[in-house]
C-alpha cells in the first residue's frame, strides 16, 4: 500500500537507541501549538518556500497554473502543490513536502543504509506527523524490514487502541508523548481530548515493549510539578518503562511556519523560560533526562 512521508532524516541521535534514520510521516490528528513540523500536519503534499534566498525573479508565478486565481508573495493563494514552480526557481528554494510511496519503496530506501545503522547500534525510527494515522502503511513497511533492523516509533498516542496495540507488538521501542494530563489543557493546546492517549499509555504500561515517555515541556502549559507528578503517577512501576525524556520548548519551533505559508501564533508565552523538575521522577524511581 501507499503512504506519504515528508522527510527521511540521517544520523538522528535523539530518536531512540543509537544513531538512527528517522522517517517523518505526513499527517497528524493533533494541532499542538508548539509543533515545529508544520509540514507534518496535513496528510496532503504541500509547497514549502524558503524565506531566504528569493531573488524576486518571478519565474515561479509565471509557470504556476493557479497564479491567475491570486498570488500572495511568491505563492499561489490556491496552491495545489503541483510542483511546477519547484524546478522553475533558479535558487531551488521551493520544494514539495509530501512524497507518496509504497511500503516496498520505503523499505527499500531504508535498507540502503540499514547495515550502517545496525553497526552503530541504531536502526529506523518512524516519526511525524503521526505514524498511527498511517498505521497499515507503517506496519507493512515494518514487515518488509529484516528482523535485525531495530525499529522505533515516536507517537502522540492519538489513534485507535487497536492500531496502537499493533504498534506495541511490532516495534522494538516506543516513544510516547505526554503533553498534558489535564484534559482541558490538552484540548486547549492540541485541539483534542487526551482520553485516547491515556488509554493507550495504560496499554503500554501493561505490556513488555520497551518504551519512554516524552514530555515536550512548554512554558506556561505543562511545565508544572502537577504535570510531572501526574505523568510519573501514571507510568511508574510499568515493567517496560525505560525512562522519561523532557524536551524543553525552543523558540526556533516557529521557524518553518513561514515556509509553509502559515503563521505561528502560539497562545502561550514562548519567551518565558521553562520550568524543569526531574526530582519528581527520581522520587518515583523513574530515570529522566533532558534532551
Amino acid at each position, binding site marked *: 500500500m501507499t503512504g506519504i512521508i515528508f522527510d527521511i*532524516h*540521517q*544520523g538522528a*541521535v*535523539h530518536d531512540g537507541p*543509537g*544513531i538512527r*534514520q528517522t522517517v517523518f510521516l505526513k499527517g497528524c490528528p493533533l494541532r499542538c501549538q508548539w509543533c515545529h513540523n508544520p509540514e507534518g500536519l496535513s496528510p496532503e503534499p504541500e509547497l514549502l518556500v524558503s524565506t531566504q534566498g528569493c531573488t524576486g*525573479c518571478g519565474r515561479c508565478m509565471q509557470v504556476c497554473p493557479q497564479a491567475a486565481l491570486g498570488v500572495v508573495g511568491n505563492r499561489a493563494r490556491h496552491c495545489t502543490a503541483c510542483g511546477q514552480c519547484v*524546478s522553475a*526557481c*533558479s*535558487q*531551488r528554494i521551493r520544494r514539495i513536502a509530501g512524497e507518496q510511496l509504497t511500503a516496498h519503496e520505503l523499505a527499500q530506501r531504508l535498507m540502503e*543504509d540499514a547495515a*550502517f545503522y545496525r*553497526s*552503530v*547500534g*541504531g536502526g529506523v525510527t518512524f516519526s511525524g506527523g503521526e505514524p498511527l494515522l498511517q498505521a497499515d502503511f507503517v506496519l507493512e513497511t515494518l514487515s518488509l524490514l529484516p528482523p535485525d533492523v531495530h525499529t522505533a516509533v515516536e507517537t502522540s498516542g492519538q489513534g485507535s487502541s487497536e492500531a496502537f496495540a499493533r504498534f506495541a507488538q511490532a516495534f522494538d521501542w516506543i516513544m510516547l508523548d505526554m503533553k498534558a494530563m489535564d484534559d482541558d489543557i490538552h484540548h486547549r493546546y492540541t485541539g483534542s481530548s487526551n482520553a485516547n492517549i491515556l488509554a493507550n499509555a495504560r496499554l503500554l504500561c501493561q505490556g513488555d515493549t520497551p518504551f519512554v515517555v516524552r514530555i515536550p515541556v512548554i512554558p506556561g502549559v505543562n511545565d508544572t510539578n502537577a504535570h510531572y507528578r501526574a505523568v510519573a503517577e501514571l507510568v511508574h512501576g510499568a515493567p517496560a518503562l525505560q525512562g522519561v525524556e523532557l524536551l524543553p520548548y525552543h523558540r526556533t519551533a516557529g521557524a518553518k511556519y513561514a515556509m509553509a505559508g502559515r503563521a505561528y501564533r502560539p497562545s502561550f508565552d514562548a519567551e518565558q523560560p521553562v520550568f524543569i523538575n526531574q526530582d519528581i521522577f527520581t522520587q518515583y524511581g523513574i530515570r529522566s*533526562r*533532558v*534532551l
Partner: protein
Amino acid sequence: MTERIAELRRFFVEQRAHHAARQPARDAQELARIFAQGAAPDVQRAAQRHSRMLALEMPVIFPQERLVFTRTNPTLLALFTPQEMDALRRAHTLHEQGEVCNICVDYTRLMDVGLQAAKDSLLQRAQHEHGEKAAYLRLQADILTAILELARRYHDLAVQEGRDDIARMLSRVPAYAPTTFPEALQMFRILHFAMWLGGNYHNTVGRFDQFMYPYFAADMQSGLLSRDAALEWIQEFFLTFNRDSDLYSGMQQGDNGQSLMLGGLNPDGTDSSNELTELCLTASLKLRLIDPKINLRVHKNTPLSLYRLGSELTRQGLGFPQYANDEVVIPALIRYGYEPADAYNYTVAACWEFIIPGRGMDIPNIGAISLAGAVQQAVAQELMACDTFDDLLQAVRRNIHEQVHSTLDSLCNVYLFPAPYLSLMMDGCAQAGQDVSLGCKYNNYGLHGTGLSTAVDALAAVRAWVYGDGSIAKQQLLNALATDYADCPDLLARLRFDAPKMGNNDPLADDLAVLLLDAFADAVDGLRNERGGIIRAGTGSAMYYLWHANDLPATADGRRAGEALAANYSPSLFARLKGPVSILQSFAKPDLGRVCNGGPLTLELHDTMLRNDQAVAKVAQLVKSYMDMGGHQLQLNAINRDTLLEARENPGAHRNLIVRVWGWSGYFVELDPEYQDHIISRTEHAV
C-alpha cells in the same frame, strides 16, 4: 578547573595582563644590517640571531604561576635585509618565510640529558672536528649557553621574589634532565619557547602522552603526584601555549601549528593511550582554549571511551580533536618508504600532514595543485574534441599530471634558513653536526589537491547530461561557462542543485572522486624531489582553497567564477546533502592510503547533535564508523549558524567563540572577514 588555573586563564587569556611586561618593539633589521655588512654566513647568522633573541628576553614571573618563561621582546630579528631576501628569492625557492617550520622535533634528545651535558658534549666534539663542522658545533653550544643563561636569570629573579618553588625547579632544568613530571613540563616549556625565539614556527608538540608518560607514571607511582595535581599541572602547561601566540607568525591569528598528538597504535597491535592521554583531553576540555590543538590517533582497538572524550571536546566547539586513522595512515607511510618503526610513531604537522617526530624534514605543504582547475580546463578546452566521457577523463588526467610537474618544476633549488637549535633534536643531524635545513632522514614533499568536490561534481554533471542523456549540448555548456552563466539561470540552477554531488553516497559522483584521487596519486608516483625524497599527494588544501578559487573560472557544477571551493576534503559548499551518514560514506570510498599526505574530511554538526551525554556518545560512534569504513582523517565542528552570524555583527559579545579554519582553530572574531564568510557558508551543511 582549580581557582588558581581559572585565575591564570583570566590573567593570560582574557585580560592578557602579561602584555604589560612586554618591551617596546625593536627594529627588526638591526642584526640583518650588521650581518649584511660583514657578509656573515647563514649558519652564523641563525645562531647569533638566536643567542641575541635569548639575551633580549627579560625574565618575568607572574602571580600564581608555577611554569615560567613568557616572551617579553615582541620583535623577531630578521636574518637577512630586504635586499638580501630579494636576492635569495631570485636564486632559490624559499619555502614560505624561509625558516624551518612545520616539523616535529624529538624533544627527548635534549630532555633526556639536560642542556649542560648537551652543551659539554658539543664543545667536546668540536675539539675533535675542524673548520666549518667545529664552528657549527660551537654555534650550537652558544645557543644552549644562551638558553642556560636566560634560565639562570629566571632562577635569580625567582630567588629575589621569594618564589622558592620556581627557583628550585630552575636549579634543576633546563641544565639537567628533569626528575619529575612538573620539571619535565617546565623543561618542555623552555625548549619550545626557545624554538620560537630561533625564528622557527609551526612548532608542533608531537606525541606528548608518549614521551611525557615516563615522568608522569613515575610521579604517580611514587605518590608525588595525584591525578588532580597532574591535571592542574597539565592545565597550567596548556596555558603556556596561549601566552605568546599573538607573536607567532602564521597566516591568521591561531594558525601557529601547536599541534599535540595523543594515542596511537603500537607495533605489537596494542593501544598506546594511557592515563596521561585522558588527562590531556580532560585538561583541554575544561580550559576551552585554541592551543594546543589536540589530535587523536585511533585504530580498531581504540577504546570507545577515548572517542567519547574526543566528542566531549567537539561538543565544546573547539574544532578539535582531529582524528587520524592508524589503520590507513601507518600502512600508507610504510608504502611511501618510511621505516615501520617510524611510521608507527607518526604525528601531524601544524595542520594535518603526517610527519615523523625527530626524523622528518618533510615539507608536506610545499605546494598544491587544483583538481577543480584540472577539470575546468579539460572541459573548457577539450570538451568539443572529446567524443566520449573517457576521452575527457584522459584530458583531466593529463592536466593533473601537468600541474604536478609544473608545480614541482617551480620548486627547484629550495633554500631553508639554517636551524642549528632544532638540529640538536633531529636524529642524524644531532649526531653528525649537520643542519636539518639541509635534510634529515626523510625529505619528502607533500602536494595538496584543492577543490576535489567541485571537480567531482563538475565531471558528474558533464557525464550525466552532456555524454549521458545529451540534455545539455557541448556548445551550450561551453557558452555558459565562458559567460559565467550570465544568461542561463536555468542551466546554472540545474547544474548547481540537481546534478549528482559528492557527499550524497551517490555512485554517480563518488566513483569520480575515487578516479580523480587515483589520478593524483598516479601523477606523483615514482617522482623524486631534489632532496632525494618522494612526492606525497594529499587531500588537504591549506589556504590554497581560497587562492585557487579566486583564479578559477565558472565550473560545470554550477559554481560561478570566484566562488569558494571547499576547504580540505569536504563537500562543495552549495551541494544539498542528505546528511552526515552519506557524507561519511562518500568520503570513505577513495583509496585514501594512496593520497595520504594528510587532509581531513570536515563534518559540520549542528550543536544540537551534541546537546546531551547520550548524543555525545553517539557522535563518538559516528566518528568511529568513518574510521571503520576506511577514512583516514576526520575533524568535526559543532556549530550554530545563528551564533556565527550574531558574532560577526557583534564581535564584542563573542570573544571566546572558537572555530576551525583549515587546519587549526582560532577565535572567530579575530579572523579576516573572508574567512568568517567562508565558515558561515560552510554551515549550510550542518546536519
